[in-house]
C-alpha cells in the first residue's frame, strides 16, 4: 500500500472539525456540501452538448 494511503488509513481519529461559534462541522461533510453546491451551479451555467442530429 502506498505510504500516504496507509498513513491516512491509520488515522483512527474522529476527523477534523471546524468551528464557527456555536456552529461546528466535520471537514469531510463540509467538502461534500461544497462539492454539491459547485455541481449545482455548474449544471446551471455550463452549456449542454447538442445531441446527434435527428431526421
Amino acid at each position, binding site marked *: 500500500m502506498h505510504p500516504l494511503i496507509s498513513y491516512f488509513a491509520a488515522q*483512527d481519529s474522529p476527523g477534523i472539525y471546524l468551528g464557527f461559534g456555536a456552529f461546528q462541522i466535520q471537514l469531510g461533510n463540509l467538502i*461534500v456540501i461544497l*462539492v*454539491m453546491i459547485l*455541481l*449545482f451551479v*455548474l*449544471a*446551471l451555467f*455550463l452549456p*449542454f452538448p*447538442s*445531441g446527434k442530429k*435527428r431526421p
Partner: protein
Amino acid sequence: MSIREERKTEPVEEYYTWTGKARGWLLKHLPADKLLPQDQPSYVASWIYVFGMGAIVSLVFIVVSGVVLSLNGPAWYHVSDFGHFVNSVHLWSVELFFMTMVVHLWGKYWMAAWRGGRTLTWITGMGAFLVSIVAAFTGYLLQTNFDSQWIAFEGKDALNASGIGAWFNVANLGQIFGFHIVLLPLAVGAVVALHVILVRMHGVVPPIDAAETDAQLSGTDRTEATR
C-alpha cells in the same frame, strides 16, 4: 399520422375484468410512447436534468457491489485487496448516490417540480430520499468495526426512545444485515421504480416561464419541438 392521432382512431375496448381494467388503465396512463419516449422536450437539454439519472446509475453500482460483498462476507472484504476495492466501490457509490440525489432535489425544488399533477412524483422522490437514509445508516452498522459499534450504541437510545428499538435493534448485527441487504434495498428499488414510472407518466416538468402555447408542451408539433 402521429402516434397520438392513431390512438384516437382506435376502437374503444370495453374492460370488464380486473386484469382487463388494469390493462386499460395502464394503456391510458402509461402508453408505450410515454414509457419509452423517442425524444425529450427541448428544455431537458441542460446539465441540471442529468442528476436524477446520475442517482439511478449510482444505485445500480451500489446494488451490484453490495451483492458481491454479501456473497463473500466480511471475512473477505476486510482482508483481501479486491474485497477492499469492492467495499470502497460500495461506499463511494453511496456518496455519489446521495450527492446526485441532493443536487437533483435542489434542482427540482427551484423548478417547483410538483406542478402539473406531479405531487405523487415529488412525494415518492422524498420517500426514496428518506428510505435511502435508513439504508445508508444500516450500512454504517455493518462495517463490523469500532466505528459501527460506536454508531450502533449512539443510535440505540434514540431508536428505543422512539419505541421501535424492540424490532429494529441496531446492536443485532444479523437483523440489521437482513434489513440492509433485503428489506431496505427492495424498498428503495420499489420507491425509485415508482418515482421513475410517475416521471414517465407525467413527463419532465416544464420550466416555470414556459408558455402553455409552447409547441413542446402542447404536443402539436412534437418532432419540431424536440429537435
